[in-house]
């Protein structure tokens, strides 16, 4: 595989984490414009853990996940009563708050004779684990793929158990859910923690691939993109958001004929798809048909 393909595929993989994160909240009935915040938390958390504290890579990634999930739950707790536009703006507010906080966040320590760590708006350089461990881009791509598979497996477990059903019930009708004895608050906070953890996972992986992160990378745009991916790919299964990423970054990135008009073509395509299938390509109806077919 040439390095271009590897980098495109890696980006698809990493963006899938963010898209799945936003998708989980969509399933739970909440629109988030702010999942990039947890991606950033994962990136900074895992980066600090391996580069500054010299933790092993896996532990560093784990720290990024826990940070994303914990803060996700913490933010969701007061925001739990909000729905619709209110929730969307609250998540946006938190994400922008965090981003401007990172702009003045300095935490530089001497490691092996070098100053390492986040340096406010100048960013956070030298997150060098992959380089020092001698992991090639292809190896790292496989690592990203494996991690993504583990997230898919987790969602599959939730779908096999009751987790996914709970998210969907609360997402579609919280009043009915409560009258079925379901704790809407707990489901919403759980969804936020899960979404935050998934984004944090992706962020940690991203930081170690890029070796450099800066607050400006975690603006509103990636968050809105992530949200759109789920809506385009479909809300039925976890493959929806991944399909959304594939369609955007993958298909059109490789179709060079559209270069320069890429977003015009993509935007038009998406608008058409949404007219025909308002809940995305792989929507709930597709899921129901798929399950019925499997059972046959």
């Amino acid at each position: 595989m040439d390095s271009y393909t590897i980098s495109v595929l890696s980006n698809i993989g990493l963006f899938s984490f963010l898209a799945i994160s936003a998708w989980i909240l969509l399933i739970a009935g909440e629109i988030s414009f702010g999942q990039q915040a947890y991606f950033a938390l994962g990136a900074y958390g895992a980066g600090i853990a391996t580069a500054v504290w010299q933790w092993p890579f896996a532990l560093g990634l784990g720290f990024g996940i826990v940070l994303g999930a914990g803060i996700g739950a913490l933010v969701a707790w007061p925001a739990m009563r909000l729905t619709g536009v209110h929730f969307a703006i609250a998540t946006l507010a938190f994400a922008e708050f965090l981003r401007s906080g990172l702009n003045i966040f300095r935490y530089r320590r001497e490691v092996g004779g070098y100053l390492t760590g986040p340096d406010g708006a100048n960013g956070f350089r030298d997150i060098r684990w992959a380089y020092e461990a001698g992991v090639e881009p292809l190896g790292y791509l496989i690592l990203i793929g494996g991690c993504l598979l583990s997230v898919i497996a987790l969602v599959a477990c939730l779908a096999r158990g009751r987790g996914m059903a709970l998210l969907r019930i609360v997402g579609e009708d919280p009043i009915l859910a409560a009258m079925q004895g379901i704790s809407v608050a707990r489901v919403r906070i759980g969804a936020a923690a899960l979404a935050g953890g998934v984004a944090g996972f992706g962020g940690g992986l991203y930081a170690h691939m890029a070796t450099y992160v800066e607050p400006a990378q975690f603006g509103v745009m990636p968050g809105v993109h992530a949200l759109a991916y789920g809506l385009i790919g479909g809300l039925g299964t976890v493959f929806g958001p991944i399909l959304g990423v594939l369609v955007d970054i993958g298909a059109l990135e490789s179709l060079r004929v559209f270069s320069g008009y890429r977003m015009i073509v993509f935007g038009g395509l998406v608008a058409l798809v949404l007219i025909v299938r308002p809940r995305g390509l792989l929507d709930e109806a597709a899921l129901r048909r798929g399950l019925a077919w499997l059972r046959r």
Partner: protein
Amino acid sequence: MAAALEISGLTRRFGGVTALAGVDLSLLPGEVLGLIGPNGSGKTSLFNVLSGHYAPDAGAVRLDGRDIAGWAPRRIARAGVTRSFQNLRLLKRLSLYENLRAATHSAASGRELFWQSRAAKRRERSQLMDLLALFGLEDKADDAPGALTLVEMRQLEIARLLAARPRLVLLDEPAAGMTPAETARISRIIAEHVLPGRSVIVIEHKMPLITALCRRIAVLQAGVKIADGPARAVLDDPLVRQSYFGSRPC
């Protein structure tokens, strides 16, 4: 015998409207009460307070001796109270099967969020499919409720209610929008599957259903209970006839 449900002085206002004005009502275990009254008399509001959707402004609701007034809906549901909805509340993006299963989640353990054993899944499926089969809906288990007829939708609500294994059932106009034949069918279904072993309050404007199911009837008018007693006596009460049926012949 101790009452299963004991409502006293229940009051609820909405701005200037007093939907419930000090309602007293009690229900014995296994008893079926028909609740009637003109439009806007507070019947649904009573259910909304009983199921916790609205907190009462005053009054007590004792369920098997515990005062549940003001509890959150989730807690009341877990205490064994389940209701149906006048305007139907189905999950239209989920299959019929998942609609039924929605009623079973609260009883499950935390571990089951992530994993249900094959045996547990099979047991759950056979139980819920049996319920669907009661209503002849088993072939549509994987469809969305949007494809159902009105009668089938009401049946699905009743099936969901049964899946929750409630002790107290609140039925809000289960025959709304049905033809006389369909009404007769749904009242047979309720008599067969909902009533046995449960305390039930059923709101209905269709008298044939009320008279078929209930030996006791209570009448609300403008948030006040104006009659309560054996069905025939209440229906023959001139005050009730005057307020409820007005000039309309019964």
